[in-house]
């Protein structure tokens, strides 16, 4: 069915440049910056890990980030489309590659389903800490966490069921959708503009507290701040010869910057020809690095070392959830004024989580709006129903298998795959020269000369390495070959395949309308469509 110009609604847009930067930075800054990064660094050479980490930032993170910003603005300003299938379909002239865009809807929606549940743990732990339920050293923190999330055998001293977890999930889910429903500039942008500074402020307070702890236990003078920082930062140079350390650094940079999701592409599509993408992309990525290295690297592990010593910290660093929800409550219970600092810590994690999850549904909302002419209210309601069902399946399955499987396939496999498709489209469909010219439009800083070479040859190699490592670990490594899939894992995989199939069908059905919409937009906005 043809759409008339009057049916072409006014596109959403950003209010300020700082707003779009903080929204993208908020999308990138998440729980991984504060919980995953210190553990990965400590296990992969300590300070020596920073060498592959910064190399990966320069050769993988920044180039892919810029290519996604450029592609998003290029596709968005010429077609008026904002969703991943819309932009990829427009750039590839409606070819098969537009179906890759279905991944750009599937990945964030699946990640949202479990991410919002983990986010609700942070809200709950902030409440439990300030209310005193967690502020006592005699609490069995591992058992508390298992009973709260339903990962344990169920029915115990602290929680009889997952009802409390479900209630906190409902509150978190409602907060997210209330903000998403308000729209791009009035909801997401406004929230990120105040949430990001508050998050940094909370983190600075906690860093100041950790760095002034000294050696709180006079009987153990070695457990002090200096040695705690040494545990995290002392380099083990031998690690640089280990390929796994380099892959771990690539993975950390890749997942931390939120590149390859299709979210940056959607956000950048709302920009106009004269809006800068180069400085904005670099600023958003740098803010993420600041939160990760300067704040995340100074909180969790040094604090854990001071109270738990070398052996306890080394054990805790192996598990991200264990570090965040078992070790840290224990530390705050031992720390002077721990109740206040524990509350600040979980509040900062909650804010970091919300700023990330808000961005995850925007690509799918844009897709439903432009592909099926749905209003924001209808799109948000449709997605709320889908994600609510997925999250409930996760909460009431009482097992970590579901969460681990969703994360392994949607995040560890899906994101590098979509990122590789995006890089291929940037290099071979748009063309690097045209991409660089597009990047220069309205740029507040110059793209470096090495960008074309790196995005053409180096970044795809890194991505192939990450994908190869995933296939080896999942299908070829001896430990995995002997392992059998549980029923829960199998059901989760089937559920995800069903959702992916649904998105493929929706992309197929939506394309004629998106195509027509793009033609109409290009005719109405000739100045934006010019090279």
């Amino acid at each position: 069915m043809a759409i008339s110009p009057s049916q072409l609604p006014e596109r959403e847009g950003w209010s300020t440049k700082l707003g779009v930067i903080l929204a993208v930075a908020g999308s990138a800054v998440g729980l991984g910056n504060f919980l995953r990064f210190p553990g990965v660094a400590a296990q992969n050479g300590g300070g020596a890990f920073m060498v592959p980490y910064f190399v990966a930032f320069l050769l993988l993170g920044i180039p892919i980030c810029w290519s996604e910003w450029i592609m998003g603005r290029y596709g968005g300003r010429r077609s008026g489309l904002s969703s991943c299938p819309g932009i990829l379909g427009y750039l590839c002239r409606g070819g098969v590659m537009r179906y890759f865009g279905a991944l750009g809807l599937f990945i964030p929606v699946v990640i949202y389903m479990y991410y919002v549940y983990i986010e609700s743990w942070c809200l709950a732990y902030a409440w439990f800490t300030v209310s005193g339920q967690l502020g006592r050293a005699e609490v069995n923190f591992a058992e508390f966490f298992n009973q709260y999330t339903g990962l344990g055998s169920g029915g115990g001293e602290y929680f009889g069921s997952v009802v409390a977890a479900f209630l906190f999930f409902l509150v978190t889910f409602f907060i997210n959708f209330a903000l998403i429903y308000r729209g791009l500039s009035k909801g997401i942008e406004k929230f990120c503009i105040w949430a990001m500074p508050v998050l940094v402020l909370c983190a600075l307070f906690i860093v100041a507290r950790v760095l002034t702890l000294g050696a709180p236990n006079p009987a153990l003078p070695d457990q002090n701040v200096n040695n705690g920082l040494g545990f995290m930062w002392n380099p083990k140079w031998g690690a640089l010869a280990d390929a796994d350390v380099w892959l771990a650094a690539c993975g950390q940079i890749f997942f931390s910057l939120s590149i390859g999701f299709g979210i940056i592409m959607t956000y950048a599509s709302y920009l106009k020809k004269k809006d800068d993408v180069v400085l904005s992309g670099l600023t958003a990525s740098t803010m993420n690095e600041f939160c990760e290295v300067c704040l995340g690297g100074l909180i969790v592990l040094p604090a854990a070392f001071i109270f738990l010593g070398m052996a306890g910290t080394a054990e805790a660093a192996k598990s991200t959830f264990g570090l965040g929800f078992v070790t840290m409550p224990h530390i705050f219970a031992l720390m002077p004024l721990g109740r206040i600092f524990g509350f600040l810590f979980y509040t900062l994690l909650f804010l970091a989580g919300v700023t990330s999850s808000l961005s995850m549904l925007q690509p799918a909302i844009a897709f439903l709006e432009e592909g099926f002419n749905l209003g924001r209210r209808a799109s948000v309601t449709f997605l709320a129903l889908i994600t609510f069902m997925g999250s409930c399946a996760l909460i009431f399955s009482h097992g970590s298998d579901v969460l681990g499987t969703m994360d392994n396939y949607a995040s560890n496999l899906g994101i590098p795959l979509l990122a590789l498709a995006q890089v291929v489209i940037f290099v071979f469909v748009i063309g690097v020269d045209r991409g660089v010219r597009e990047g220069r439009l309205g740029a507040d800083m110059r793209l470096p000369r090495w960008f074309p070479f790196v995005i053409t040859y180096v970044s795809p190699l890194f991505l192939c390495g990450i994908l190869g490592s995933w296939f080896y670990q999942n299908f070829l490594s001896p430990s995995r070959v002997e392992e059998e899939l549980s029923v829960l894992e199998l059901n989760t995989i089937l559920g995800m395949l069903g959702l992916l199939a649904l998105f493929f069908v929706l992309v197929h059905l939506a394309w004629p309308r998106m195509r027509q919409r793009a033609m109409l937009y290009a005719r109405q906005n000739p100045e934006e469509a010019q090279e």
Partner: protein
Amino acid sequence: MSISGLIIFAVANLTVLGLAVYCFAKVFRMPAEHMQAPIKIDTGEFEKFEDFPDNNQASKS
């Protein structure tokens, strides 16, 4: 913390901090401009446009 650890700690943190300060200083120095969605103009034409790449393929087939 060892001397090498201290050096890496300082270099890593100062690099990131320096880059962040440079970027935000540049962003704040730029004149404030408000982004707005493009004005909607009703041209009355919407069915077929030759400049859309997909149309050429469709007409060939």
